[in-house]
């Protein structure tokens, strides 16, 4: 599996940038010839991860959210969403459906959506240092004719 394209972007953790982040990721995905449903899945999963960073990683002040996206020659999209925020004390608990620490009408479905809409979700976090969420999804109808 070789990386055929890579992009990085960073932005301030303002909620107005959630739309920008998922749109940028979707645009970068286009050379893999994704279906409308695959684009929607990726946009939704990225929106959840970026929102988590904005809401939970930087609760008191703005910080920076980083996205590193890679496309492989096997038609796989690998997207890392990273922050340098407060971290997650208990990742297993945070990933439970309907669990939320937010009081702002959050559904507590962020990680459940990420898991359902992608092929693989990995979460690494250190309290006080930050969190990295890695989303991976195979684009079935790759422009390269490969799975």
């Amino acid at each position: 599996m070789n990386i055929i394209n890579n992009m990085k972007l960073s932005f301030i953790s303002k909620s107005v940038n959630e739309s920008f982040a998922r749109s940028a990721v979707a645009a970068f995905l286009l050379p893999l010839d994704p279906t409308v449903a695959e684009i929607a899945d990726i946009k939704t999963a990225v929106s959840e991860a970026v929102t988590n960073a904005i809401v939970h990683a930087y609760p008191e002040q703005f910080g920076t959210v980083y996205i590193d996206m890679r496309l492989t020659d096997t038609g796989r999209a690998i997207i890392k969403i990273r922050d340098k925020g407060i971290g997650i004390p208990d990742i297993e608990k945070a990933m439970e459906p309907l669990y939320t620490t937010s009081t702002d009408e959050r559904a507590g479905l962020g990680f459940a959506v990420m898991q359902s809409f992608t092929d693989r979700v990995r979460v690494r976090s250190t309290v006080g240092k930050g969190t990295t969420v890695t989303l991976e999804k195979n684009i079935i109808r790759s422009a390269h004719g490969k799975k």
Partner: protein
Amino acid sequence: MVDMTYQNGVVTARLCGEIDHHIAPKLRGEIDACCESCRPSRLVLDYGSVSFMDSSGIGLVMGRYRMISLLGGRLEVVNVPKGLKKIFTLSGLENLGVMK
């Protein structure tokens, strides 16, 4: 973002565009203000023109369900586009009996 109408005891909120964590509070504010003013027996959330939503759109439904229940009314969610069915199914909202 949202077009509100009130007729015969029913408030209909026609949502359009994208619903995410940035947009949801504005929608919530408009819908709640209208319902608190009109005290409808039924609140209809029409998702027919929503092009994208993440779980913030689910939170919007859950919150409006609580709000309208406290006002003595009931909630209906209608015209969910095919592309949004997956996240609605994942949320388990069908169990609330609000999906029409």
